[in-house]
């Protein structure tokens, strides 16, 4: 089975950590990461920039500064895309939105990207459910 773990925290606290504090947390996490890699359990992981860096696309052409902030909708999935700018990311979101018009897309820059390290990482689509 594949799972995604979503990590929540107070972003103003986390992003006020000094480099030393941040490094210390990352060092503790990397111990866990390495163990999971050895066990062949860790797929892609990433760290997001704070919500102040987010932009949201609603209804295909309404671009809103800031994070997705409704309580009526729930997180149902995510994409990682590799493009050169926020404008390019918005262009991708618009294509997705055209295909799935009721969804809202929050565009959040990724601060740290750790690729899938499993030796037999799937190279094809897996339908789990």
């Amino acid at each position, binding site marked *: 089975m594949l799972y995604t773990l979503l990590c929540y925290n107070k972003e*103003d606290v986390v992003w*006020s950590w000094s480099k030393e504090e941040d490094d210390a947390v990352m060092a503790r996490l990397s111990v866990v990461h390495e163990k999971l890699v050895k066990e062949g359990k860790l797929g892609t992981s990433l760290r997001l920039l704070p919500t102040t860096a987010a932009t949201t696309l609603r209804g295909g052409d309404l671009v809103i*500064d800031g994070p997705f902030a409704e309580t009526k909708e729930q997180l149902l999935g995510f994409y990682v895309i590799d493009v050169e700018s926020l404008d390019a990311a918005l262009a991708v979101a618009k294509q997705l939105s055209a295909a799935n018009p009721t969804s809202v897309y929050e565009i959040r*820059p990724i601060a740290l990207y750790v690729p899938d390290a499993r030796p037999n990482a799937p190279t094809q689509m897996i339908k789990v459910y």
Partner: protein
Amino acid sequence: MTDMAWINGALTAARPQAIGALLRYFRDMDRAEEAFQDACLRALKSWPEKGPPRDPTAWLILVGRNAALDGVRKQSRTTALPPDEEISDLGDAESELAERLDGSHYRDDVLRLLFICCHPELPATQQIALALRIVSGLTVTQIARAFLVSDAAMEQRITRAKARIAKAEVPFETPGPAERAERVAAVAAMIYLLFNEGYSAGQDPARAPLCDEAIRLARLLLRLFQTEPEIMGLTALMLLQQARLKARFDPSGEVILLDDQDRSLWNANLISEGLALIDKAMRHNRPGPYQVQAAIAATHSRSPSAAETDWAGIDGLYLALERMQPSPVITLNRAVAVAKLHGPAAALAMIEPLEAQLSGYFHYFGARGAFLLQLGRKSEARQAFDRAIALANSPAEAAHIRQHLDRLMQQAE
């Protein structure tokens, strides 16, 4: 059990919003502060046992308000309100209050609180001291240490500032759009002033945290005004400057100039956040001074080494900044880019007309000395450096010029 560090973090985070709401309610700064203080004491007693409330800020506002009212009623011998232990059991009142806080009040409460601190009648240093005391919740001792004055002097300064504000007309009605924009601009200027207090202090442990506090306030302002490109620019500017903190000084505390900094010491997290914010701001096509300054800082951040710096880009950005807010200091900064692009003679010609206006400015003579030295005009360079040392704002600045002078003189031999 709730972790004390978590509680302290929650109290600090709730402070601007809670005091802002209590101020709207009581219309009196001292009462608002006392009520918040009271609520914090109760939180420290109640949260470790019962666990934190669902919405700490709403809890603090409600408990603070009731505690203050309770005090008034006790004095007038009427019935007391129910104890706050009952309120903390997530009663309906709290969720109702939380809902109301989600609305536009919240934004204007925090803005009003910040805006009060930048009242135009208050001198800049008092504005910052007041914001640190009221909004950030730093102790008088902490603030006094940051401003290199005694506790008593700082206490008096803050009391005076508060008295002045109490006399002034504090606007409690909801601001209109033009007024709101004015307030945001005043608050942004105060936050950048606060940042510069910390930045110019370099590594002084008492003053350096002022930069972190300024960034925290900027992020707060940005969350309230998410579509303001200048607030994005201000936040980005401070993040990108703060990112270089570890590289700005050598182990003995001497200043290291941008060109000579070890870029691997720059804080990559802060840089990526700053760059993302500029990216967002640019989409608005509403440039402003903070955005342009952030773009200049970003040009340095994006450059893998000093040698690869896009000086033409920086020159263009300074030119844009000069047009937005003409100032000899900006022209002086542009001259540094011009020196890299067109040589020291062009840069020197550019700054010479500024001497009358900048005759008391350390950086003017530092730059002038450097340009003259590059042109081989050594005795004039020495004169300029001597004047720079006399005008230095800190021992580190003076030491830097001396070191710079020695090294460049050797190179020029």
